[in-house]
């Protein structure tokens, strides 16, 4: 966990400094009747920076590297695929629409991670798309993101 702690602490330190600086720059520090909208975020960011520094120092002093924390080989590849597909799913949500997007997302995940046969994968994806459309779009009228290519 040592290296994981170092990376996390460094990232959080940068994030909290940006958080505090952004609050001071964008929002009002003191309003007419008391603390303004920058007050709380600024102090939160400061406290977070302090905690991140404590964690950074603690992990820098730590000699024992601990168990492996970063996935390697097949695990790394699988995680990258899942992360990549998820990011692509969100990025293309407005183009593909929720129903079609979910079906494709499911198909990729089931086919790749589950290693099922292609017709099982297709059947599950099509079934999920049909179910989602029937229940959420048709019956319950949930306002899903609509695709540019299809009407739903």
């Amino acid at each position, binding site marked *: 966990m040592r290296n994981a702690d170092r990376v996390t602490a460094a990232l*959080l330190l940068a994030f*909290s400094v940006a*958080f505090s600086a*952004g*609050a001071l720059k*964008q*929002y*009002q520090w003191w*309003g007419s009747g*008391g*603390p*303004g*909208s920058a007050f*709380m*975020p600024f102090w*939160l*960011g400061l*406290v*977070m920076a302090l*905690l*991140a520094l*404590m*964690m950074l120092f*603690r992990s820098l002093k730590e000699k024992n590297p601990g168990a492996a924390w970063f*996935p390697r080989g*097949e*695990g*790394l590849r*699988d*995680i990258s*695929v*899942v*992360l990549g597909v*998820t990011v692509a799913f969100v990025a293309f949500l407005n183009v593909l629409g929720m129903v079609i997007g979910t079906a494709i997302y499911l198909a990729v995940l089931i086919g790749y*991670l589950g290693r099922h046969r292609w017709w099982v994968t297709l059947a599950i994806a099509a079934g999920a798309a049909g179910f989602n459309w029937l229940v959420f779009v048709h019956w*319950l009228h*949930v306002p899903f993101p609509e695709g540019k290519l299809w009407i739903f």
Partner: protein
Amino acid sequence: MDFLTHLGMGFGIALTPFNVMMAVAGVLVGILIGALPGVGPPSGVAMLLPLTFGMDPTSGIIMLAALYAGTMYGGTITAVLINTPGESASVVTCLDGYQMALQGRAGPALGIAAIGSFIAGTVGVVLLMLVSPALAKWALSFGPPETFALMLLGLTTCTMLAGDDPLKGYMSMVFGLMLAMVGFDIISGDARYGFGIIEMMDGIDFLPVAIGLFGLGEVLHGAEQAGKAQPVQGRLRLRSGDREMWSNERHLLPERRILIPTPLQLPADIDSLSVEVCVPSSGHSSLVTGY
């Protein structure tokens, strides 16, 4: 004695066969809806509101209350089985329920959650009815100092959940507070950290965060283990004719002697209990409220 008279009258209306049937139907549909991650009790009830159109108002309210109770329980199913809380109340169920599922004891975990929410719901509602007049008077005297003290208590107990590393507990708590900064500031009306995105002005809801942390984390962990994972062995039965499965859980129920008067206690022979009996009775718990 006003209280008992009113309670009896409420039961008289609620326990007619038709109303009980409505409660059972409401709970069943509620469990189905509640099992969908992200659809919590409020949105579940809102979606199923049309079901009660054209009903007698009392039965309609009973069914809605039962729907609410059902959706509350439904979130437990995904929490126990796939470590993804269905709604915010079942986040804590993830912590131990999923561990039980990993040991092949998902059935007892679901049953315990159902029995527990029934007992707590029923006892809690009756107690609330007893003390709420006095409590309401007292609560009105709460001012900013008391509210602050409550928040401080909440944040302090938060850090206890972090387990063996307090520093990380504090960090996750502060990070949660930072996430809560997104959206309108209630004093000044400034939209903080919105980056000009309209949806961000509403702030970040609790449920997406919980599902993202638990659900997505579980998916990524599963992806890493995909090659070497062993399927969990165990039966997923909601019925419990199964002696050995329940006997493991028996020690978890000694508190029933303190909580419930003897005539209402669960039978000592827990094997004879089945979840089918308990789930509709959580509908009764909402009947007791006489909403």
